[in-house]
């Protein structure tokens, strides 16, 4: 299973960050051609991302490109750059309906055929940034077999909801987070929590990471490299959790060797969800 705890935003027009962001070892790097790039630099940023995607340093890391909306003059050109450059994933911002994903899917297929990439090779993810997007989250998450994740985006959503972010347990985001997360889980894809914008407030960031982790998000979208380490540390299992996971897997393997259908550990039955959780724990521990 691909780990997606951290998706680090890299402005598409920032040559220095495009050249170095891999060293922070996020699970995914997202080259941004949308909000981070001014309209007059879109053309240059698109070429920069197209070239960076082909650089060997990004061969071993999942690359994502956030394109501009397909309704803008930039969207389709961004898509050409992303797919021809070899991006693993295209992230569609401000997704409000499954039709938007299906339209994107059609264009992706067209470009894959044109440039010789296997059809279906490029994956998709949607950012949910409005009340309409939240309400349609299940339909969006299941709109294409290319979908691998949905991401909650807080800033635009809260404006749409006529409210603002609070510092505690964030009731204003609770429904949207829960809805997006349920949609992702129902579609068997991953879910990313919102960006935390104040890069100087590690305490606030960690408070938000705790909420996201407890709810069940795979991880968060990140806007500063230092947040990668903090997030990975927060998602790392404790030694007790790792020890228990190892014992669960050892018990399951022993039962398999002995031909036993029922597995138990310390008098408790180990069913498939427990085994799956143990495997995920070890995967997180290994990546921490």
């Amino acid at each position, binding site marked *: 299973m691909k780990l997606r705890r951290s998706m680090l935003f890299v402005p598409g027009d920032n040559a220095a960050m495009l050249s170095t962001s891999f060293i922070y070892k996020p699970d995914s790097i997202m080259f941004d051609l949308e909000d981070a790039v001014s309209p007059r630099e879109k053309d240059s940023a698109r070429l920069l991302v197209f070239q960076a995607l082909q650089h060997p340093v990004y061969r071993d890391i999942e690359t994502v490109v956030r394109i501009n909306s397909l309704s803008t003059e930039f969207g389709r*050109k961004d898509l050409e750059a992303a797919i021809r450059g070899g991006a693993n994933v295209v992230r569609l911002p401000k997704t409000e309906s499954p039709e938007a994903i299906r339209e994107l899917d059609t264009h992706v297929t067209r470009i894959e055929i044109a440039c010789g990439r296997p059809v279906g090779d490029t994956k998709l993810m949607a950012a949910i940034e409005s009340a309409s997007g939240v309400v349609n989250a299940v339909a969006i998450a299941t709109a294409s077999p290319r979908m691998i994740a949905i991401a909650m985006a807080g800033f635009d959503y809260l404006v749409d909801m006529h409210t603002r972010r609070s510092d505690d347990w964030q009731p204003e985001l609770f429904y949207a987070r829960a809805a997006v997360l349920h949609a992702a889980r129902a579609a068997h894809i991953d879910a990313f929590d919102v960006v935390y914008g104040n890069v100087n407030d590690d305490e606030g960031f960690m408070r938000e990471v705790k909420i996201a982790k407890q709810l069940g998000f795979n991880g968060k979208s990140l806007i500063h490299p230092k947040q990668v380490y903090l997030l990975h540390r927060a998602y790392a299992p404790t030694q007790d959790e790792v020890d228990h996971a190892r014992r669960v897997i050892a018990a399951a393997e022993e039962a398999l060797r002995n031909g036993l259908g029922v597995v138990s550990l310390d008098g408790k039955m180990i069913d498939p969800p427990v085994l799956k959780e143990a495997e995920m724990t070890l995967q997180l521990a290994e990546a921490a």
Partner: protein
Amino acid sequence: MKIVKEAIAGTLESSDLLVKVAPSDTREIVIKSEVFKQFGKQIARVVEETLDQLSVKAGSVVIEDKGALDCVIRARVQAATLRGSGSEDLDWRRLS
């Protein structure tokens, strides 16, 4: 591709480069770089290759490099050339 007007792309920030193009009867390339001694030939090779890919036969190309990777040099030369050509339509097959 023909350079028909002056254009620039890139920045003078670290790890980037500024590329200025202008119309000219011949192809002239000037490279200024903080790492010219070590990488001057490599930078020139990347610039020449990129211009060849775009079939730029003539034009003045002035590079001010700040330690950019090859992929950044390629992208900025492409961007300046496309801006200088006034072309909106990209042939992506030429840009790899």
